[in-house]
């Protein structure tokens, strides 16, 4: 993805950018991260009430700026009933401020993929903070240790977790990022498998060095690209590929989806029968909340950390792993992974071996993407 044109230090995020952000973030979700619709709806309502938020270029952050890193955690299905709420999103951050005894200067998302793209926007709307144009994954991943801050071996604690009933938990110390994931997941389950979290606070310097930069803007532009193609009745998927420097891996029809839940993940495999230029071939993709590895005719064609997206062949809309079903006409697209994830240290965290596969990562996009 092309990044960093000249960015104004701080600019207002416009109402017209919210819908493209939802579309772009859902594509970057790589099948996971949850449909951003409800989060988007929350922001649309807030904007209708006259609230707005601003987006700050991470490169303009002071080194000692205090940045809150937020996410909504839990099972997507629970989120369909217990709807996203800006006040709850902010509760976790307020809890962290209280724990630290200081105020935050800005807020950012742990992952740009899926509904968490909107989590810092909701917090920002309630608390009056600017949103940092960055995240820690450049997409969606299932767990805390997949973040770029974990790759950078930054301190994983403290973490606050807030529940809509005013239960709040501070995880003040953990031995590792994996322990943080285990402990916070346990608490999340106890409060009904949906919670707002504020991860370990970061300094401006840490964000500049380790975060994945300008991903909010990238997601908005990606969504714009899709909407623009739709308006022009052009091929939305081709537009995504062209805009991101991605690769169209396969086009076909979903013929099989097998799902199982293990260790709290939605795992499974989907098969796509080729159409058009892929007629006679089969694409198979594994998922672990997000798409992890794709094979064409039994040969590995793509794997994490490259971003595997399954898009509606006509609209270019992303299809989540939970919504995949027999008969859908889809196009499979791979987008390049953020550079930090393809370094040796990055691959330890988010390469195929980190997801239980016995092979090494080979980028579709040349060395280091």
């Amino acid at each position, binding site marked *: 993805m092309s990044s960093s044109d000249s960015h104004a230090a701080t600019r207002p995020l416009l109402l017209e950018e919210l819908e493209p952000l939802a579309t772009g973030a859902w594509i970057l979700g790589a099948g996971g991260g949850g449909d951003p619709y*409800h989060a988007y*709806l*929350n922001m649309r*309502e807030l904007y209708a009430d006259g609230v707005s938020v601003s987006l700050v270029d991470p490169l303009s952050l002071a080194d000692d700026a205090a940045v809150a890193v937020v996410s909504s955690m*839990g*099972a*997507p*299905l*629970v989120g*369909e*009933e*217990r*709807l*996203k*709420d*800006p*006040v709850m999103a902010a509760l976790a951050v307020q809890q962290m401020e209280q724990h630290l005894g200081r105020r935050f200067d800005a807020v950012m998302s742990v992952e740009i993929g899926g509904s968490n793209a909107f989590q810092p926007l909701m917090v920002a709307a309630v608390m009056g903070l600017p949103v940092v144009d960055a995240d820690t994954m450049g997409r969606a991943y299932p767990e805390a240790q997949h973040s770029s801050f974990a790759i950078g071996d930054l301190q994983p604690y403290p973490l606050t977790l807030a529940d*809509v*009933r*005013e239960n709040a938990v501070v995880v003040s110390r953990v031995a590792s990022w994996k322990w943080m994931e285990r402990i916070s*997941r346990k608490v*999340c*389950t106890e409060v*009904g*498998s949906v919670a707002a979290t504020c991860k370990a606070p970061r300094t401006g310097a840490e964000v500049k060095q380790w975060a994945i930069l300008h991903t909010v803007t990238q997601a908005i532009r990606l969504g714009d690209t899709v909407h623009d193609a739709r308006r022009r009745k052009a091929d939305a998927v081709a537009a995504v590929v062209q805009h991101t420097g991605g690769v169209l891996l396969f086009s076909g*029809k979903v*013929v099989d989806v097998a*799902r*199982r*839940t293990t260790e*709290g*993940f*939605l795992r499974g495999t989907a098969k796509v*029968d080729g159409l058009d230029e892929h007629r006679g071939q089969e694409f198979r993709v594994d998922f672990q*909340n997000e798409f992890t590895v794709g094979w064409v005719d039994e040969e590995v064609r793509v794997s994490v950390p490259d971003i595997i997206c399954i898009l509606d062949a*006509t609209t270019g809309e992303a299809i989540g792993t*939970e*919504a995949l*079903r*027999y*008969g859908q*006409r889809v196009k499979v697209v791979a987008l390049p992974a953020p550079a930090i994830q393809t370094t040796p240290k990055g691959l330890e965290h988010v390469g195929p071996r980190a997801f239980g596969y016995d092979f090494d990562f080979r980028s579709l996009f040349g060395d280091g993407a």
Partner: protein
Amino acid sequence: MRRIGIDVGGTNTDAVLVENEHVLASVKTPTTHDVTGGVRECLRLLVEEELRGVVGRVDGVMIGTTHFTNAVVQRRDLQEVAAIRVGLPSGRSLPPFVDWPKDLARLVKGRVFMVRGGHEYDGRPLVDFDAAAVRRAAREIRDSGIRSVAVTAVFSPLTPECEHAVAEIMLDEMPDVVLTLSHDLGRIGLLERENVALLNAALIDLARRTTRAFSEAVGESSVEAPLYLTQNDGTVMRAELAEAFPVYSFSSGPTNSMRGAAFLSGLADAMVVDVGGTTTDIGHLKSGFPREANRTVEIGGVRTLFRMPDLLSVGLGGGTIVDSDAGAVGPVSVGHRLTSEALVFGGAQLTATDIAVAAGVAEIGDASGVREVDAATVAWAMARFREIVEESVDRMKADSRPLPLLAVGGGAFLVPERVPGISEVLHVSHAAVANAVGAAIAQVSGEVDQVFSGMSRGDAVARAEALARERAVEAGADASSVDVVDVEDLPLAYLPGDARRVRVRVVGEAGPPKA
């Protein structure tokens, strides 16, 4: 099985008498403004003229109508609705009606209340149910003059307790209130389920009036049989029950048409292409039923998620305007003005029907009207029709094996004789009354979509099946005839206790009325 099926469409009301595999009689009359006049006339024609007064035994009268969908789409005959949502402190920022189109909300949105309560996915209460707040809301609603109330609680498809508790309080304060409880209608997905409940509540008076008028029309005829209304999924519900669930008939028209076509052709697995005057509906029949939509479906601009057939509607019909200069086919159609505006009827507008006549695939009107249309235009337009049909069929076909295709509707001649992925293209006899036939043959269904946890997969599916059977019998099925037609289960990420969402659908024959 001997039944009368009636389809109340926008233009015509059709009736058929079907006995086992045979259509014994069929009649067609114009739909009347009061809707029931056409039903009355159809029954009269059927009995007096077709059957010469000898009706014999009839097991059921099944009526399908697009009346309620049209009311939403055309924004008419809707009533003001109060919404009670149980789920605070969750969901405060996205209140009822939040994503409704403004014009529709203006007509329907009455008082809105959000109170504390609801459940978790595993059945634990979210917070204590706030009965006092519900009672205050009930009194306010009573004093406001609103009579129809939609009640939605967090996770009610799993644990309907809170919605029942609200119903009890509402009835206590306001005995004449008409309630729609969301768990009776929708699936998991609070906003979408609530939207279904709100739409249903907005249609309650219209549904009651219409259903009762249907009952009267049947009662006045010499036919003695229970009355059923057809549903979105190709099944029926006893009228007394159906009048409480108008949303369940939203898509019954296209569904009946598809099922009727399948029945008339003797096929259970097929693609159906129904070409009308303005649009073509494409669907996939599996085991005689349209495949269900698994995603949100917009009705009149409102996002909903409930039992609806998966249909694709494209802008191609007999009246579709062909503009060879602009190189465009549709989506604008001359619609019902075809018989005055098309070239073959002496008009000045080149339509899809004119092209078909010029190409020699249809004999309609006066062929001399299209003598001036040049061959290149005809070839180009026919190729475009073919492309539209081929692409739509391919999009909707959820099976890699070749399937037969049933071409129905007044514009069926626009369907090419060969389509990729299709074993053969069949035109169906009695196609003009396929909707009424689809109504006549409808069965009764029961559906469950719930999360089960703390039990094995087998136990969860068995529990769901038992519940679905119970619901089918409640809706009027003969218990001994009920069969499972669809089972789907989905394990849920992050949820402990081997939680899985199970969907089971069963159908059975309409049974004798319960004593």
